């Protein structure tokens, strides 16, 4: 199963692309996805601590535009968005 993570704000610096994609087990949670992103940052961004802090202070948004909890389960190929700390205006 695949999950696509759309990047926004400061998380855009994680990649030159607009999203990250991971293979995940069925019923993986948002918490598991966070671990996958941290692993990715270790392997592709030299374990950048600033980036990891962004992941840990972010929430995620489902493809139905709802903010989802760490326990939310991914049960199909899905697109979710990482929502780092915000500050518009």
């Amino acid at each position, binding site marked *: 199963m695949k999950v696509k993570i759309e990047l*926004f*704000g*400061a998380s*855009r*610096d994680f990649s030159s692309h607009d999203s990250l994609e991971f293979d995940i087990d069925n019923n993986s949670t948002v918490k598991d996805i966070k671990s996958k992103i941290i692993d990715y940052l270790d392997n592709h961004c030299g374990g950048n601590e600033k980036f990891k802090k962004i992941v840990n*202070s*972010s*929430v995620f*948004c489902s493809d139905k*535009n*709802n*903010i*989802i*909890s*760490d326990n939310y389960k991914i049960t199909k190929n899905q697109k979710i*968005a990482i*929502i*780092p*700390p*915000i*500050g*518009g*205006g």
Partner: protein
Amino acid sequence: MLHTKVIDIKEKKLSISTAENFISSTDFGASIFFSGTVRNQNNNKSVIGITYDSHDELVIKSFNEIYSEADQKLNIKNKAVFIEHAKGYLNLGEISIIIAVACKHRDEAYILSRYIIEEIKKRSPIWKKEHYTDNESDWLKGNPIVYEKN
């Protein structure tokens, strides 16, 4: 009455006159126009521009929720509200956000305008990347959104 939009600055600029046309009505005796613009200094750094990023669907959802909440929390029923936020690169002095409100009386117009901008700052997924005179750029730290169980 509500208008909300995220404007891609490559396509058009935000305009106070558009907001004025939307909220204008003889039903209302008080109008407030708030605009946010790009300023040249932040945290002792010389800023030359800001790139705004947005999760458009979630931003519009948050604008709608803020508008609806004004009914319940502020008890302001009769109102016209125009909210537009820019995304993309803005130069100094360009408008990043317009909040225009019209109500029957000035007290509620001031309260409503202030309420909307403060809630947007807390809840709407918009991000700023500042660009500086030394060719550096940085995403502003921002405030985490808190997950609230529905």
